[in-house]
């Protein structure tokens, strides 16, 4: 599902790496991985709009490059209104992202952005690939809210990856399940797959400007944000992430964002 926009640069980079590393053997699959989820609500004001900032860290037990992630399931709390946030009022498609990148999408389809780091072992040395990430609302299809992830690798490889996620119902205390199938990405032809080790991203209005077409003019505005309930739920806002890895293992990490100081907890 690689995009074609920087295809030449990407192929050149791949070819260079392949040439430099063609004698390298792929390391065997990792035994197990650990994951760590951290969540912040910015700002955390009850009854107001917020941005969910999440960071994910994945490590191989005993060190080294972890097995590539194949699926991420991020559960978010019931009281948090992502669908009612005013985010993702427009939609973007996989085809537009692949051909034109994020700039080709309507401003009002952007829901969040961040950075990612992936690793691959080449000749006994760990190469770290850095990327930017963007999250877009995709057209609702088959009764599901669809989301698209755009990953732009910029160093040392130039690579663009577009993959879909689904917003699914979840059992309490969770209100939704953001389920993402992460495609495997070869570091170079016949080489090991790149393994995600760190993601920092937002879902929310922080740093996002939308443009509204009014009377022939585009008026900028900041979307209102993911609305928090007026009362904090008992023991705070629960989040949980589950990762499936290419080696067949799974890792789960939970996080509760505590209630902001001075506010009474609800039930």
């Amino acid at each position, binding site marked *: 599902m690689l995009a074609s926009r920087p295809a030449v640069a990407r192929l050149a980079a791949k070819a260079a790496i392949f040439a430099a590393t063609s004698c390298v053997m792929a390391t065997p699959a990792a035994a197990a991985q650990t994951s760590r989820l951290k969540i912040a609500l910015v700002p955390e004001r009850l009854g107001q709009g917020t941005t969910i900032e999440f960071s994910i860290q994945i490590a191989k037990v005993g060190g080294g490059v972890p097995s590539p992630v194949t699926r991420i399931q991020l559960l978010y709390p019931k009281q948090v209104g992502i669908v*009612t946030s*005013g985010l993702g*009022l*427009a939609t973007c498609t996989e085809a537009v992202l692949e051909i034109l990148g994020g700039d080709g999408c309507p401003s009002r389809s952007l829901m969040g952005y961040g950075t990612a780091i992936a690793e691959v072992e080449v000749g006994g040395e760990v190469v770290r690939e850095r990327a930017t990430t963007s999250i877009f609302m995709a057209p*609702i299809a088959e*009764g*599901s809210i669809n989301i698209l992830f755009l990953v732009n690798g910029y160093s040392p490889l130039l690579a663009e990856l577009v993959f879909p996620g689904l917003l699914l119902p979840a059992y309490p205390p969770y*209100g939704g399940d953001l389920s993402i199938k992460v495609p495997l990405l070869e570091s170079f032809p016949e080489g090991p797959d790149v393994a995600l080790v760190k993601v920092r991203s937002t879902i929310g209005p922080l740093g996002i400007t939308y443009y509204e077409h009014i009377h022939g003019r585009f008026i900028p505005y900041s979307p209102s944000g993911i*609305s928090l*309930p007026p009362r904090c739920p008992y023991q705070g806002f629960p989040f949980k992430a589950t990762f499936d890895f290419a080696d067949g293992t799974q890792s789960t990490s939970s996080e509760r964002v505590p209630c902001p100081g001075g506010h009474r907890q609800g039930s």
Partner: protein
Amino acid sequence: MPLRTAAATVIAILALGIGAAITSAPAAPRARPALMLTVTDTAHLKLVHKHGEYINEEGPATGTLPGRVKLSLEIGPLVVAHFTIEASGGSISGTGTGKPKGRSEEPSFGGTMTVSHGTGRYKHAHGHGGFYGTINLNPRSPRSYSMAVQTNGHLSY
């Protein structure tokens, strides 16, 4: 024709028999038979209150059971609505669920609806049917969070 005549005769005999049974029965209080209605109602609702993913809406309903609708809506990956129709002589309450489709700014949803209870003349209300609607999710729109909802189905009370 002979068949139709025979059928009419059988119905007449049955009717007479039932009539006789009713007449000869002792005068005792009996539960009234449940009334069945095929209902189609449409409501246009406006935002009353919003917190998190929960939205409260109210507005008039027209159709088989005209009245005022109060809706408590949970808008997530599934749309779940707890509704009460305050009709003449009582109220009807239940839950509808639907899956979103269409535009993300103003999605429509469709699913099922269950009537679970009521008050007044509808205190024994139960039933089920379809649940459809649209909601405007653009907070900057003059019609923000306004809804059109339609339910249809069968109601016993």
